[in-house]
């Protein structure tokens, strides 16, 4: 028997994503983004995003179906991001998914966005091994997850206590006068700078942090250190070596992320690491993760970037995994949860 065909809907932030997945095969991934509207304001405006989701929802569903040449009646299950994310945007996707579930008389699965970022790798690299580590890094999240079963058993080893990695890059980007979102621009500058030029702090790496925060991250102190450094230079009337600042900052972020992740792999006897989320595009992180994983004998899996930014594919992939695992469907009265715990895979 063919594996079930799952339609996934993602609306946790500014992207309206709709995708179709059968088993671990991605049939189509349609996405509409309101990013250009937000760029004017230097950040995501929830109400602007919500209005855009309402307008984009039907066209995006139709585009996905049309491109895959699939009829709605062929769909076996509907998966949707139930959290974490912005309440207004999440509400649009959840409501649409419930309407599909009623109209098609097919089960609904409310799933976790962050776990979706890890699960999407299965569409690219095949099933995850019995135990894998997942580092999910984006504009909103920096979390280290131990995945024993992507559909039923995920443990949160650590998360950022303040800024997410992408958020820290965006803030440093603003500090250096770069356009929003600053992350990719800082990355570009960093490639031409000296990562050892300035020794910026590595958050939560002191011996005293090992007991409680061995796998947690903190990037706000780093961002402040960069701000102070730039300010001191400016006050002294000196030019800012932006390439070196960017490179040294990026080095600090990549160092902490990879060091803690690899330590967790050793501690838990894990030999497969998945990196997901939009920040996995970052070249400094990619480079350092590749090098350190090779040294540690860890199989590193980073899906191509289009799978890493927010999209429907990750939600359809997780939906597909939970359907195959026989997880019970969600009821029609499920709420959205802006701060859904990372151990909650389905609601």
């Amino acid at each position, binding site marked *: 028997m063919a594996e079930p065909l799952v339609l996934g809907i993602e609306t946790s932030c500014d992207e309206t994503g709709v995708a179709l997945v059968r088993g671990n095969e991605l049939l189509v991934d349609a996405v509409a983004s309101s990013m250009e509207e937000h760029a004017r304001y230097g950040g*995501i405006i929830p109400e*602007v995003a919500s209005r855009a989701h309402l307008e984009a929802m*039907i066209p995006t569903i139709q585009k996905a179906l049309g491109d895959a040449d699939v009829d709605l009646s062929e769909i076996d299950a509907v998966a949707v991001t139930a959290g974490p994310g912005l309440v207004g945007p999440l509400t649009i996707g959840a*409501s649409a998914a419930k309407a599909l*579930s009623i109209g098609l008389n097919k089960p609904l699965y409310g799933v976790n966005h962050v776990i979706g970022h890890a699960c999407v790798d299965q569409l690219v690299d095949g099933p995850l091994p019995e135990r894998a580590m997942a580092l999910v890094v984006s504009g909103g999240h920096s979390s280290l997850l131990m995945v024993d079963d992507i559909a039923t058993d995920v443990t949160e080893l650590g998360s950022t206590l303040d800024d997410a990695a992408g958020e820290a890059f965006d803030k440093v980007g603003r500090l250096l006068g770069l356009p929003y979102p600053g992350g990719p621009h800082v990355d570009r500058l960093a490639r031409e700078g000296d990562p050892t030029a300035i020794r910026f702090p590595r958050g939560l790496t002191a011996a005293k942090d090992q007991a409680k925060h061995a796998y947690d991250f903190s990037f706000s102190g780093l961002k402040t250190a960069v701000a102070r450094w730039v300010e001191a230079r400016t006050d002294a009337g000196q030019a800012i070596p932006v390439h070196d600042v960017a490179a040294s900052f990026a080095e600090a972020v990549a160092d902490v992320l990879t060091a803690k992740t690899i330590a967790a792999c050793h501690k838990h006897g894990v030999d497969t690491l998945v990196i997901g989320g939009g920040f996995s595009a970052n070249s400094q992180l990619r480079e350092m993760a590749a090098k350190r994983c090779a040294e540690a004998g860890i199989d590193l899996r980073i899906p191509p970037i289009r799978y890493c930014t927010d999209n429907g594919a990750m939600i359809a992939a997780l939906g597909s995994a939970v359907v195959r695992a026989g997880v019970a469907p969600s009821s029609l009265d499920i709420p959205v949860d802006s701060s859904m715990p990372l151990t909650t895979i389905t609601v």
Partner: protein
Amino acid sequence: MAVLALDTSAAVAVSLVDEDGARLASRTSDERRRHAESLAPLIEEVLAEAGVEPSGLTAVVAGTGPAPFTGLRVGLVTARTLALTIGVPVLGVPSLDALAVQAVSDLGLRSGAEILATSDARRKEVYWARYRVISHEGPHGVPVVERLAGPDVDRAGFVAQAQLAAPDTEDGQLPVVVGEGAMLYPEFLPVADDAPLVPDATVLARLALVRREADEEQPAEPLYLRRPDVHEPGRVPTGATTGSGATTGAAGGVA
């Protein structure tokens, strides 16, 4: 064959009517902040109670507000998606129209009488629109009203001044005030005894049927009447976001 109507402009109201507008089943929920949780189960309940399959619907009707944004969108995206799923049109009816029409029947208003329909816009304001009764009874038993002003959003005191200062209607009376928006500001907007307070989804469905027969356009577009709160980077937001959860700071994107 049946028509499903839903309104999320105030609380949640769902109704299923036949092609003549007779009610088959209806449900309401008084949830003001959990529209997304309440609506879908109520839709399932009315379909089940009437024994109607989704494929038995010929249209899905949604109240288009004006209303607080997040709740309003729940109704619209649900109606649009359900209509897409079963391949039927989605029809939009302004929620205040349904309130005005219902006021005519509930209060026995005669032609020439006027109605000030209101709903809660939060932030110390009301959504409002002013109507004149054309006929007590029209097709499908639905009273006929004509919109004279609005919909708009203003402070209650301002609405009272502009709309209730003098008896300037055809029948020499003040407009009859209805709707729960006015209930919040009795000092400015005295609500008539027995006035309807929230839109009734059955009335919404009947209005859509009448307008469909008259070949009127019925866009299922939200009547927001307000722009989103936006602020320049680094500046404090100008106000709380209505019904849409928290406004994040300038760089506060959440994945």
